Structure formats: structure tokens, C-alpha cells
């Protein structure tokens, strides 16, 4: 079983590798090994002729193992395994030695050492390969249904694309209506389309599509299973209203005496305790906010024994009196629904940092708002009917400061990254404001204007030329209140002048971050995320829509902040990825999984405790660990934690790893 005729194929990767590593010398050194039948180089091993070289060599030298020394295995492992398979070699007898990301790139300035290291990496890989077993992929069945999490424009688009292709799709949204952030916007850049006008048709399509099951006001409770076979528990939150009966007439909202800040308007307006999220909500149904409803709060206190129940006295219930449909029942109708799906698309979107996070910019004043809040003040469907008014006194602001990069590109106070959309939406907001208030003045304080999209730069120019928006290059240091105005202190970095300006309102383009609760959801899905909560893709360039968990895809701003154009394209892309998977009769799973040697296993359960996929159980009769192959992803956490060698990942056995370490650690 130990391989004796190994082929080693060293890639130049143009100059990416060969510019630093002396590939000829590497091939020469490796070629001296007794177990290597051929060691050769080629300019691009992943190209057609490069693959052909490997195929031909396998046949010519009757190779029983192949090492390709090139880039990261996440890029071309599959390419090379497929090439070997075409030549009749078991694909699991191919290993990748990463001499680009782990050698030539980081050691650009030390070509000699890099060459030595490349030799070492290849030698270590050969050591591993020699003990590789030939494997066959594992076949798993596939359920032809999909789940889309998040009902913003990304989720809507993905669900529609899936449903149109005949795949039954479940769309889950935690708010009472789908629509997400886009539906709350005033107008969209650069075309100034009204998002309500362009999104409502899609929302209605979702509601009426025979292949879409819509759960709004619902959250993901639990996810188990694996690619093609996920089991999902969905919690439908208590609405206290029978949605089968509710007609969405809105009479209840008129009589309800209890108020709360409207989430839909980002706190720029109030709503009632019983409410329909907006006039175009899909579904157009009422829910009761249990924390604000007078009756439900009373009932709760009775349950907790804090107050005594009153017999024959109705607590409020004004909404019940006006509900002709008799839909309001005040019963806690929370329910857990179980669904089985083959693929999951996560489209959970983004939010912006609250203004309060930036007190130095006056974020705690009522008239200093985030850009999303200002969207509502500019929206014709918003609380001010599209003419912005100050939250503090309802006056129309005559001068507004728009501040860019609040928290973005600022690792100390916010996030290190550029939030990408702020430049464009502030340009849009300034334009719309000038349109709505023709005698108003708009000042934008920016670091750079980033307007790199189709029609974006033209839109920026138009805001200056047609709408007279004034752009000042400089960061604002301070905003404070002077009378009923707000004084903005900044430095114009083009002229070096210190600027002090009194304005009526300030709009802060606060940094975009991932949507609240994403980390909890990601843990349930077992997918990785970065410190800001953005979901991690498998490969930023080549696999941006896939997560490391097979069968779970990302769409829209859950991955990173992006504009609507990109979001919609990605949503369709993620849907296409899911369709490609669900259209297969059976799915193939990598056989690189954990295996238990029951002779050695003492059943201590350390592996079970650390398994992130819940794939390990202790057989009660034999008192040894057993692996559920369908759930195992082959991550190796179990093996690392096993005090003996009882559980190991196939082709990553301890002797293989130790041999690799030996070679890598050797002093030459």
C-alpha cells in the first residue's frame, strides 16, 4: 500500500512561484528520492496542457501517487484530483503541496530560503501521500427543497429564482413583513427609482408563488443535518392575532391606545401596540407587541402573581371591538414548525451603527440621525411624507450637514473597512433633500468620494452641478448644540481652513455592520463569521457565495456590505448554486471523514464533546464512539482531542501528520 512510484508536478504559476522559488532546483532535489518516479515543472499546471502532462505521466510512469506543488488546495485540489481520475488514478492519491500562499508569496525577499522551504513542503506532502488510502466518495440523498433566511431584497430574489425553477422554497423573515432595508429607503441611487414601486411587485410574487412558503415574524430555532438533508426548526413568534382571519384593514391600529417607537421607521415615528408594519406589508397582517399591549401586560402580571385578576372587567381590548373579522384572540400562538430542506441560503442583511455610538458627533441629539433614519424622513411613505422635518421640533431643516465615514475606515472608533454604500447614499440624500427643500443648503463632509459603479460618478457630478450640493473634503471633529442649531467643527483639508458651521440637522453615515443576531444564527448553521459578523465565504474571489458547510450559501449583504445591484446579482447567483446542487439525483460527499477504531476507543467522549457537527455518539453497548458519516465534515477536532489514536480522519492519520511534522521541522 505504501506508494513507490510518485509523480511530483511543480507549477511556476507564471512568476507567482517561479519568480521566487527556483522550481528547476526543487524538481531536481525531489527527483533524487527513490520513491519519486518523475519530478517536473510546468508554467501553469492548472491549464489544459498542465493537466494533460499529469494525465500522461500517470499512464507513462504507471504512477501510484501524485503531488502537485502549486497554490492553496482550496483552489485546485479538485482540478488535480479530477485530472488524476481521468487517467485512472484514485483521486485521493493526489495531494497538493501549497508552495504559493505558504511559500513564494510570504518569502518574496528570501528566494534561497523559499526554495529550501518549497522542497521541505513537498517532501512533507510526499510523506503524507505515501500512507493515503484510495477512497470512493460517499453518496447521500437530496431533498429538493430550499430555505432562504431573510426576507430583504436578497432573500426575495433568491426565493423567487428558486421557486421559478420549480424548487419548493421556504422564506423566513423575523419581522412581520418582508421587504427588509431596501423597502424602507426613500429612492435608490443612481436611477432614483422608488424602492416601494420596484420591490412591491416582487413581494407580491413571493406571497402568491405556489412554490414559496412564507414565514414572517419567524426565526430559525435550530438547524441539524447536512448538505441535501437539513432539518430546520422555525419558531413562529406569537402574534396574538389569527392571521387566517386578519384582513389587514388596520382598524385595530386606529383605536389602540398604546404606543411604541416604530422599527419600520428606525424610531423616527411611533406605531401602536397592535400594528401592521407598513401599508404595503406582505403579508398585510397585524401583530401585537406583547411588551406594549395593555391587556397582555396586565395578563402577564396576573400570571406572575403581581396583581390580582379582575372578574368581569375587560382590560382595554379596544382592538377586539373594532375587528370585524374577529381575528384578535390574545392567545400566545407561538409555534415551532419543522421543515426539511436540501439547501439553505442565508440572506440576513445589514444594519448601521446607532448614532448614539458617536457622542462627539452629537449622536445623542435628536436632530443628529443616521442615514437610514434620514431615509425614512425623505421617503414619501415615511412619517414626514417625504419633506424632511427635524425630529425635535418638526421644523423643516434649512441647512444639513452630511458626514461621511462615521465609524467606517476608523478602527479605533468603529470598523477598519469602508462601508461602500455611504458615499452614494449621502449624495442621493443631499440631492433629494435639495429637491424637497429648494431653499435648503446641503454640505457633505467627506474623506474620499467612492463612486465606482455604473452611472455613479455621473450621479455625483449631477448632485454638484444641478443640485448645488457643497462637498467639503475633511473629517468632522465635533458637533455640539448652540441654541437650536448644531455647530459642526471641521478642517477643510484642501485649503487647510478650519470650518465652523451652524446647521439645523446632521446626518451621520454610520458604519454598516452585520444584522443583529447573525452570530447566534451562524452558530446554529455552523458557518464561520468575522469579528464584525460578516459571514465568511469559502473564497473571496472564486467562491464568494458558498460557506464552508456544503449546502449553505450566502446572498447579499450578509457576506459584506454592497449596493442593491450587487445584492440582487448575488442573490440570483446563490439561487443558481443551490439549484445546481438540488438538481442532482444524489450528492457526493468527500470521504475524508473521522473513523473510530473500536479496539482502542475507551469511550471517554472527549471527541463527542468537541464535535461541532454533532456527528459523534457513544454506543451504549460497546461503550465506544461511533461517527455518523452523513454529519461528519472531517474537520479533525475529534482526532486532535483523542488521548489515544482511536478516532482519526481518513488520510490524516497520526503517523502521516507526525511524518509531515518531522520533515518540516528537520534541520538541514
Amino acid at each position: 500500500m505504501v506508494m513507490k512510484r510518485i509523480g511530483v508536478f511543480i507549477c511556476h504559476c507564471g512568476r507567482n512561484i517561479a519568480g521566487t522559488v527556483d522550481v528547476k532546483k526543487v524538481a531536481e532535489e525531489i527527483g533524487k528520492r527513490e520513491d519519486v518516479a518523475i519530478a517536473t515543472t510546468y508554467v501553469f499546471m492548472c491549464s489544459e496542457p498542465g493537466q494533460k502532462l499529469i494525465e500522461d505521466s500517470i499512464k507513462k510512469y504507471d504512477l501510484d501517487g501524485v503531488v502537485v506543488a502549486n497554490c492553496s488546495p482550496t483552489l485546485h485540489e479538485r482540478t488535480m484530483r479530477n485530472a488524476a481520475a481521468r487517467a485512472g488514478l484514485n483521486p485521493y492519491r493526489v495531494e497538493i503541496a501549497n508552495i504559493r500562499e505558504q511559500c513564494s508569496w510570504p518569502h518574496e525577499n528570501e528566494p534561497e530560503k523559499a526554495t529550501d522551504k518549497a522542497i521541505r513542503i513537498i517532501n512533507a506532502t510526499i510523506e503524507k501521500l505515501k500512507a493515503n488510502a484510495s477512497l470512493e466518495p460517499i453518496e447521500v440523498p437530496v431533498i429538493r427543497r430550499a430555505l432562504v433566511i431573510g426576507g430583504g431584497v436578497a432573500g426575495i430574489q433568491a426565493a423567487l429564482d428558486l421557486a421559478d425553477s420549480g424548487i419548493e422554497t421556504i422564506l423566513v423573515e423575523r419581522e412581520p413583513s418582508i421587504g427588509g432595508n431596501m423597502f424602507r429607503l426613500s429612492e435608490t441611487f443612481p436611477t432614483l427609482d422608488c424602492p416601494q414601486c420596484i420591490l412591491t411587485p416582487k413581494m407580491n410574487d413571493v406571497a402568491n408563488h405556489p412554490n414559496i412558503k412564507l414565514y414572517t415574524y419567524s426565526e430559525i430555532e435550530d438547524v441539524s443535518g447536512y448538505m441535501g438533508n437539513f432539518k430546520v426548526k422555525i419558531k413562529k413568534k406569537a402574534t396574538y392575532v389569527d392571521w387566517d382571519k386578519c384582513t389587514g384593514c388596520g382598524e385595530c391600529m386606529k383605536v389602540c391606545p398604546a404606543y411604541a417607537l416604530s422599527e419600520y421607521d428606525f424610531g423616527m415615528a411611533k406605531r401602536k401596540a397592535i400594528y401592521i408594519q407598513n401599508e404595503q406589508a406582505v403579508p398585510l397582517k397585524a401583530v401585537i407587541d406583547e411588551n406594549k399591549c395593555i391587556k397582555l401586560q396586565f395578563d402577564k402580571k396576573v400570571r406572575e402573581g403581581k396583581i390580582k385578576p379582575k372578574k368581569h372587567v375587560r382590560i382595554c381590548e379596544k382592538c377586539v371591538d373594532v375587528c370585524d373579522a374577529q381575528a384578535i384572540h390574545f392567545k400566545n400562538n407561538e409555534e415551532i414548525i419543522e421543515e426539511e430542506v436540501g439547501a439553505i441560503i442565508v440572506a440576513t442583511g445589514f444594519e448601521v451603527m446607532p448614532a448614539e455610538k458617536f457622542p462627539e458627533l452629537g449622536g445623542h441629539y435628536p436632530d443628529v440621525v443616521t442615514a437610514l433614519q434620514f431615509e425614512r424622513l425623505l421617503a414619501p411613505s415615511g412619517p414626514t411624507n417625504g419633506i424632511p422635518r427635524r425630529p425635535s421640533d418638526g421644523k423643516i431643516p434649512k441647512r444639513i450637514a452630511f458626514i461621511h465615514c462615521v465609524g467606517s475606515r476608523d478602527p479605533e472608533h468603529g470598523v477598519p473597512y469602508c462601508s461602500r454604500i455611504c458615499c452614494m447614499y449621502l449624495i442621493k440624500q443631499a440631492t433629494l433633500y435639495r429637491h424637497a427643500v429648494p431653499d435648503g443648503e446641503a454640505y457633505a463632509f467627506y474623506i474620499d468620494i467612492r463612486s465606482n459603479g455604473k452611472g455613479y460618478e455621473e450621479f455625483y457630478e449631477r448632485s454638484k452641478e444641478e443640485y448645488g450640493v457643497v462637498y467639503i473634503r475633511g473629517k468632522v471633529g465635533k458637533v455640539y448644540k448652540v441654541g437650536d442649531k448644531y455647530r459642526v467643527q471641521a478642517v477643510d483639508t484642501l485649503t487647510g481652513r478650519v470650518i465652523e458651521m451652524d446647521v439645523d440637522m446632521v446626518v451621520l453615515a454610520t458604519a454598516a455592520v452585520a444584522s443583529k443576531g447573525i452570530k447566534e444564527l451562524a452558530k446554529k448553521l455552523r458557518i464561520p463569521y468575522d469579528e464584525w459578523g460578516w459571514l465568511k465565504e469559502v473564497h473571496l474571489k472564486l467562491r464568494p457565495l458558498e460557506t464552508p458547510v456544503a449546502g449553505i450559501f450566502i446572498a447579499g449583504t450578509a457576506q459584506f456590505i454592497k449596493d442593491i445591484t450587487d445584492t440582487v446579482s448575488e442573490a440570483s447567483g446563490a439561487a443558481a448554486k443551490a439549484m445546481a446542487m438540488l438538481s442532482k439525483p444524489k450528492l457526493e460527499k468527500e470521504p475524508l471523514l473521522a473513523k473510530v477504531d473500536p479496539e482502542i476507543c475507551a469511550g471517554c467522549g472527549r471527541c463527542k464533546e468537541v464535535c461541532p457537527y454533532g456527528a459523534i455518539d457513544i454506543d451504549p453497548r460497546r461503550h465506544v464512539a461511533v461517527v455518523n458519516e452523513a454529519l461528519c465534515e472531517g474537520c479533525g477536532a475529534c482526532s486532535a482531542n483523542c488521548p489515544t489514536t482511536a478516532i482519526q480522519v481518513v488520510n490524516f492519520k497520526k503517523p502521516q501528520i507526525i511524518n509531515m511534522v518531522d520533515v518540516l521541522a528537520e534541520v538541514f
Partner: protein
Amino acid sequence: MYNDKLRDFIKSAFEKKLIEAVMAPAPTKDSYTYALITRKEDVDKLTPIAPVMQWNGADMLRRITRLKKSGRKLLAILRPCETRTFKELVKFNQINPDNITILSYDCPGTVHAREFKNEKISEEELIEKMKKNEISEKVRDSCNVCEYPTPIKGVGDIGFGIIGVEEPVFFSLSDNGKEFLKNMGIEEGERDDTKWIEIHRNNREKWLKEERIKGGTKGIEDFLSSCLNCHNCKDACPICFCKECFFEDHSVFDYESDKYFRWADEKSGIRLPTDKTLFHLGRLIHMGTSCIGCGLCQQACPMDIPLYRLFGIVGNDLQKLFDYKPGVNDDIPPVMDFREEELQDFEGLPEEGD
């Protein structure tokens, strides 16, 4: 006298049908073994408090219950260190605690099995000293520096108090123990063990300071220089529960000759076998956080290497680092615990040569 009292207790428990079996030490020609007894008539064969600990009693319970819980109501008489081992092994899924009642007692310490073979000593002698709050100079090193020489609340079920009272007392350590004593018709008594604990802890503090192995890698090599690589310490260790040790899977350390020669080239010669020190370091990593301090590794060493100095002190450091006390509560052992926030700083290592 104390053993008579315990034998009476066991007999009475049989009569009252509170137990169907008992596991406790029994004398052999040159030592003491553990005996499993299922009839009242055989109870006189037992010496519940024995002066020698040849094996760890929890290790015996592991053998009995690993595959299936105890089918009979079993009373086990264990030393305090063994009760902690019991609790630790339950966490590692090696003992099924169902149907087992544990009785533990104020421990006078035990003598080295080899020394006992050469020169017999009675448990009464050790107990008499204990009653005067003196640790016999004959007890093993690990007993001398024992952190918990008396029963702990929540570890085991019944305590048997000897110190500070004329007549020994029974007291409960768990709800199960409370119920058991009630059914036995025994009133719970009290006794003060603080002094006995204090003496041991003072010894321990001194020991931790003075007996630490110094001198870095060379210090360890010197310390282990006479090691025969027999792996007896591992076999005696109750926490080393693996069926087959990583170090006995020879495929892991099978190297081709070239490798040996290359190492010898690089290092101006190498010691053979190459996996001796590594074995001890591996064991420290695997069981250091769970070392309950029974000291059986040291007793098992045919070369009299004072291994408890290595395992006890490193174990002590590791346990502090992870804020984990093995066998005294229900905390999850660090090796079984996945924490997203990993250990950030590590300053546990003493300076080279201090």
C-alpha cells in the same frame, strides 16, 4: 477498632438490604488488594481502612462498570483521593455511578507497597498518629502533601470521621448518603478536620516550592535519566484510562534508519530510545489537568523515580492555569471543554534555573 466499626456498618447494611455487594480492601500475603464481596458472611475478610494502596479503588470500579452500570446495589469504601478519582472518571465516561454508594474516611495516609512488603505496619498505628494530628513519617510522599486528606461534601456519599472525636462518627456527603444513613438508623455526627487539612496543606506549599524540578530540558532529562520506559506509571495511573496508549501504537514512532542517523548528525548524537521523555511529557499533557494526586505513578516506578514531583507539581500548575480542581466538583475538565475564548496569557512556567 475503626475497621470493626466499618465491618459492622457493612454487615448491618447487608441485613437492612441497603446493599447487595461491597468493594473494599482485603489483606493478601504481602499487601492489600481490593475485594468484591456479595455476602454478609464474607465481610470479615475485609480491612476497609488499609495501610497500603496497591491500586486506586476508582480504577477497580471503572473495570466493573465501564460497559454496564452496576447491576447490584454496591457500597464502595474509598480513600478521599479515590473518591476524587471516581468523580473525575465519571466525567470521562469511564465509570457509571448508578447504583453505587461511596463511603470515605479521614485518611491517615498509606505506606509504599514495597516498604510494606519489607516491614509490615498496621493501619491502627497510622490512625493513632493521625488522632494526635501527626503524619507518620512512613507514609508515601503524595500522602504527606495531600491537598484533601478528608472526605469532601458532594464527593462520595457517606463520611466516616475519625479525627477530633473519641468515638468515630458518620456523616452524609450527598442526599443519597443522607438517605442511606437514615435507613441505617444512624444519627449524623460532627467532627473538626481543619487541623489535619492544614498540616497537609502546609506540607504541600513547602513541597510545591522546594521540590519543583529545575533546570529546564536538562533538568527533566536528568530527573528521568533512570527511567526504564516500562510505562508502569501509566498503568498505575487511574486517570490514564485509554485502552491502548498512544505510545504503544508503534506505527506512530516507527522511523526509517535514515531519520535516526540524520538526528544523530544534527544533535551530536541522540539518546535511545527516542520516545522516553516524550512519553512522560505526553502523559502530562493528556492527564495533567485531571491529576488527583494519588501518587500511584511514583509507587509503581521500579527505579524509584519520585514521579509525583513531576506529575503532582505540573498538574498543580496546570490546574491553576485552567482554574480547574479535578474530582472536587462538577466542573468540566479543560480537555473536554470547548471555549471560544481561548487561554490568552500564559505565565505558568518558572524561569530557567530558578
